[in-house]
C-alpha cells in the first residue's frame, strides 16, 4: 500500500506538516480560523520530533500487523478494506488508551476534544496527504512500500 515515508536527512523541522494536518482535519479548513477558534479541539496525526540537527515527522505507519487493531477492545481501530489504512472510528472509541500502549512508534495521541484516540488517517479522500503535499522540501513522501 502507499505509505508516508520520512526522509529525515531533508527535514527542516519547520512543522508545516503538523500545521497543515491540523487544517486538513479541522471543521473550517481555513488555516487562520483553525488557529484562532479551533485550536485545542484537534491534535495533528503527524508530529515532528527534533533533536539537534536531526528532525523528522512521524505519523501512523499503518502497520500490516497493526498492534493497535489487535489491542482495541471496542473494535474502533480497524483497517480500511479499500486502502489498507488503519483508522480509528471515533464514535466507537471510548478512550481506553490500549492503542497508545501498544503503538511502537507512539503515533497515536489522546484527542484533546473528545477523550478518544486520534491518529493519521492518510487524509482519505485526498490524493496526497496534507503533510506530504505541504512539505516544502519533500522530506515526506507518499509512496508504495511493499512489506
Amino acid at each position: 500500500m502507499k505509505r508516508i515515508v520520512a526522509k529525515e536527512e531533508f527535514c527542516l523541522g519547520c512543522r508545516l506538516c503538523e500545521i497543515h494536518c491540523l487544517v486538513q482535519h479541522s471543521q473550517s479548513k481555513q488555516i487562520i480560523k483553525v488557529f484562532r477558534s479551533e485550536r485545542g479541539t484537534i491534535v495533528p496525526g503527524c508530529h515532528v520530533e527534533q533533536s539537534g540537527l536531526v528532525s523528522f515527522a512521524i505519523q501512523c505507519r499503518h502497520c500490516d500487523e497493526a498492534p493497535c487493531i489487535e489491542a482495541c477492545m471496542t473494535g474502533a481501530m480497524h483497517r480500511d478494506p479499500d486502502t489498507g489504512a488503519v483508522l480509528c472510528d471515533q464514535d466507537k472509541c471510548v478512550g481506553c488508551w490500549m492503542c497508545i500502549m501498544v503503538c511502537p512508534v507512539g503515533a497515536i495521541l489522546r484527542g484533546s476534544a473528545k477523550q478518544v484516540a486520534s491518529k493519521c488517517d492518510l487524509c482519505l479522500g485526498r490524493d496526497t496527504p496534507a503533510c506530504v503535499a505541504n512539505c516544502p522540501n519533500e522530506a515526506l513522501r507518499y509512496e508504495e512500500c511493499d512489506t
Partner: protein
Amino acid sequence: MKSATPKAPYAIIGNSVAAVGGVTGIREVDSDTPITLVAREPHHTYSRPLISYLLGGKVDEGRMPYRPSDFYDKNHVRPLLGVEVLRVDTDARRLEMSNGTSLAFDKLLIAVGGRPIVPPDMTGTDAQGVFTFTTWDDARNIKAYVEKNAVREAVVVGGGLIGLKSVEALVELGIRATVVELADRILSITFDRTASDLATKSLRKAGVEVRCNNTVSEIKRQDGRVTGVVLRDGTEVPCSLVILAVGVVPDTRIVQGSAIQTDRGILVDDHLRTSVAGIYAAGDVAQAADLLDGSKCPIPIFPNAYRQGLVAGHNMAGEEKTYEGGLAMNAVDICGLPTISVGITTPTGDEYEVLSLLDEKAPAYKKIVLKHDRIVGAIFIGPIDRAGIVTGLIKQRVNVSGFKDVLLTEDFGLISLPTEYRKHVVSGTGIAI
C-alpha cells in the same frame, strides 16, 4: 439419545476477543472452509471491557458489538449462540452441548475465557444485589437492580481492574462507592506503590472510599436484599449493592477429565496447541508462555487474547505461526487519570535497575524497569502518549544502555532511539510485533 453428528472442519468455543482473533486468523489463511462457533452467551460478539462503560451509561447497547453485524456471514461462520458446551470429548473428537446435540470437529479452538471468583469464605453472597461483573448480562442486571432499588451506596470487593472500572461506572451513576481491597493497596498486581497512591488519590477525588488491608467477611441482608457489609475489622458499611470483583480464573471446566492437560489454565505451546493434536486454546482460558521469562502463566488481558486467537487460527488453518509470548500490560483510565503499566513494575532482586520520575501535582509518573540494559517493565501515569515506544522496546528486547538517560525525559520519542531501530520503525514497512 443419539442425534446425527454434523462435522465441523473448524470449531470454536467462545465468542469473545480470542474467538474473533481465531476466526480472523483462520480466514487470513483459509478463506472459505466453514467455521462453527459455539457460545454460551446469546449475544453477537461484543466487547467485554465495554460493560463498565455500558453500566456507567457512557455507551449504549448499540455500541456493544465488537465486530460489525455481518461479521459471521462475511467470514462464513455458523454461530451457535446461547448454546453451552458441556464437555470436550477428545477421544471421539466432538463437543457435547447443552441442547442435547453434539458437534464433531476436525480442528478445535477453546476460547471460553475466564470465570469470576466468588470468595468461598464470604457469607451471604447469594443475596439479591450481589453481582459479579464480567458479562453484558451482568451489566444489564446491575443496571436494572440499581434503577429498581434506587441504589445510593455500593461496595466493590476487589481493587483490581474490573473492580475499579465498575467503581468508575457507579460514580457515573452517582452512586457512592467503597472499594475494599485485601492487599495493602489497589491495583497491587500491575502497579507499584507510588502508582497505586496516585490512583487512590484520583478515586478519592471522585468521592470513592478506598479501604485496603481489608475485606468483606459478611454480606448482610433484609428480606433477601443486601443492606450492607461487615468488614474483616468489624466495621459495617451500609449499602444496597455489592459487586464481587476479586478476579477471574481460567474456565477449564469443559476439559476436566479429558486428555487435555491443564494447570491453572489449559496448557498451550508456542503454537497455542494443547496437549491433544488439533485442539488449540487461546485467551483467558489458556496458559501460555510469558514473553519476558518464558514461564507459563495465564495473562488474562485483551491484546494477548486476540493475539493468541490469531496465532491459533493461523496454525489451525495450516500456516505455521509462532506466539512470541504474552506480555502483561494494561491501559486504564481511572476517573480521568490515564494510566499504563507494562511488564514487571515492582521488581524484586538486584539484577533490576529502576528509573523513575514523579510529579505529584500534575500528576505525572514515569517508571522504567531495566534488566541487563533491557527494559522489562514500565509505568506511565498522566502523560502516556509515547508509552507505546517503550512497549515496543520491551517486545523487541532492545539494548537501551546507549540512551537510558533520555528514557524519562519529557521529549522522549523515536528520535531518542538508535538510528537503526528508528529507521526500522519509521521505514514505512510493516513492523514486527
